[in-house]
């Protein structure tokens, strides 16, 4: 046995000292090691992203429930995108999600930005304020959802009590189709602290000399804000808008928990990912769901690309100073 081990060992040393290694330069050897080190990501990318995406595209032309598989051509897509709204829920879910995304993003961004600007005024106790405002973003979605379900409770909830103090009779929030989405939007503002942190970092990165120079030139608060803060923060704003669109369009946990997985009342809160979940994992219509997932993906992709396109017009990068680019 020891002889075997020994021969194994010599074989190993022979390989290591063989031409295979020694003929290669140090650089080539390092390159090999580099490929080896990134291989976990490459394998993950192929197995968990590229493969499934292509499979999903393939499945979108079939109807399958895990056991049977039938090719149906583009029928899933025509059914989904049909303008006959009695046949498809796609437009409902698109509208609900767009409503949520386009109301909650401006709100969370402006609230987050406002707090960041205040915190950036050389204020004492900044770390404490940061913790307080960021805290809601740390809390698990399930806990946030249950808490806000209770806050929005129409008869005994805190929100309707607060409204009654100023003489407003609170709506039935999640039980009323006209206010249910708004309740979700209001709830999202509670998490605006995560935007606040990113904006604060961006604001702190603006060189103070710019403000000093502008003050000497006689620029007031508003002009300094308009001509220095806004352009200098625009890359951060761009980043926040892109990531927020991607994240908030995937809203799921709170709608699922607050509406018991139904997206009610009367589909008023049926968001895209919730519907996808229902179709795929409650009704087991995997082909239809795959087509839906691809449409969802393409919509997001289009938005992201449009934003990147538009960024040239409104995002200011420091390398542009003096028109010199290296």
């Amino acid at each position, binding site marked *: 046995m020891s002889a075997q081990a020994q021969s194994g060992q010599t074989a190993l040393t022979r390989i290591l000292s063989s031409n295979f290694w020694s003929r290669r330069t140090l650089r080539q050897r390092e390159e090999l090691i580099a490929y080896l080190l990134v291989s976990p990501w490459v394998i993950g990318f192929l197995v968990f992203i590229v493969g499934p*995406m292509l499979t999903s595209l393939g499945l979108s032309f079939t109807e399958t429930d895990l056991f049977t598989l039938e090719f149906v051509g583009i029928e899933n897509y025509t059914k989904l995108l049909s303008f006959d709204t009695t046949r498809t829920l796609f437009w409902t879910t698109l509208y609900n999600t767009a409503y949520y995304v386009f109301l909650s993003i401006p709100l969370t961004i402006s609230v987050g930005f406002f707090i960041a600007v205040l915190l950036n005024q050389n*204020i004492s106790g900044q770390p404490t304020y940061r913790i307080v405002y960021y805290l809601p973003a740390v*809390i698990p*979605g399930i806990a946030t959802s249950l808490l806000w379900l209770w806050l929005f409770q129409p008869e005994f909830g805190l929100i309707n009590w607060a409204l009654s103090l100023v003489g407003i009779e609170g709506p039935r929030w999640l039980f009323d189709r006209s206010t249910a989405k708004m309740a979700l939007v209001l709830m999202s503002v509670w998490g605006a602290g*995560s935007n606040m942190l990113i904006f604060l970092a961006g604001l702190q990165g603006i060189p103070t000399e710019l403000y000093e120079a502008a003050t000497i030139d006689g620029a007031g608060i508003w002009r300094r804000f308009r001509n220095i803060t806004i352009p200098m923060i625009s890359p951060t704003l761009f980043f926040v808008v892109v990531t927020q669109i991607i994240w908030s369009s995937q809203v799921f946990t709170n709608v699922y*928990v607050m509406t018991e997985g139904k997206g009610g009342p009367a589909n008023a809160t049926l968001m895209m990912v919730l519907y996808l979940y229902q179709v795929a994992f409650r009704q087991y219509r995997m082909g239809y769901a795959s087509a839906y997932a691809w449409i969802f993906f393409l919509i997001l992709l289009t938005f992201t690309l449009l934003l990147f396109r538009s960024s040239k017009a409104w995002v200011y990068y420091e390398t542009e100073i003096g028109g010199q680019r290296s």
Partner: protein
Amino acid sequence: MSGAAIGIGTARASVKRSQRAQSILIHTVLIAGGIIVMIPLAWMLSTSLKPPHQITKFPPIWIPEPFVWSNYYRAVTIFPVSFVVFVRNSMYMSLMITLGTVLSNAIVAFAFARLTFRGSRVLFIIVLSTMMLPQQVTMIPLFILFSKFGWINTYNPLIVPHFFANAYFVFLLRQFYTTIPRELDDAARIDGCGVIGLFIRILLPLSKPALGITAIFAFSWAWNEFLGPLIYLSRMETFPLAIALSFLRAAHGVLWSELMVVSFIAMLPPVLLFFVAQKHYIQGIVITGVKG
């Protein structure tokens, strides 16, 4: 002359006064906002300790009278399965995901930060672009794949993919590695350190804060994970805390004290981690721009 000096003095004083007024105004706004942010959490704690008849009081009662600590016991024993099982499941899932995330991303990010290889730029751009990908587009084929493996009602589908690196953490760690001076690499090389030696002896020990924040983020996200466990786990003994809570909501939708108790318990681990590591935590968010 003295009159001029007084003039300057009062001008300074008025500037100071207006600065103080401004700072008081800002503090007032920030404190008011802070109170609004904290009220829901105070309400959660208050509800969790109330006797039943005080829950439906309108206008609301803020301080429970008396404090009903037994709500906590009742809430955790309301499930058909022991509450300990859910906590253990959540812990197991979160710790395994943390392990996989730290291991794989530390290695992959090192290659991107320090080694030169053909295609590294293109590959890194692909890594970054996967951040924009919604996971829903891969969800169905992965479910089919994992069910073929017989992994339904196990934690494998939720854990294993995290051993293959993730764009956010590759980016976070790469950014951190690049702040470590390259001179250290050269010195180590001259002393005969190979690539692996360089990684293990120089970069890893110096990146403890970044690895720590990676671990904390990975743990918190795993703890908060909802859609994944919802899809793959259907037997109650396999539920993590988050799914158990949504079950409680479906079964006993109006037991507000109990719901607030379990919500409070569920939020403790990520909130405590945030408090313990808040400085690094905030740094990590600033680097990646990802919410915790």
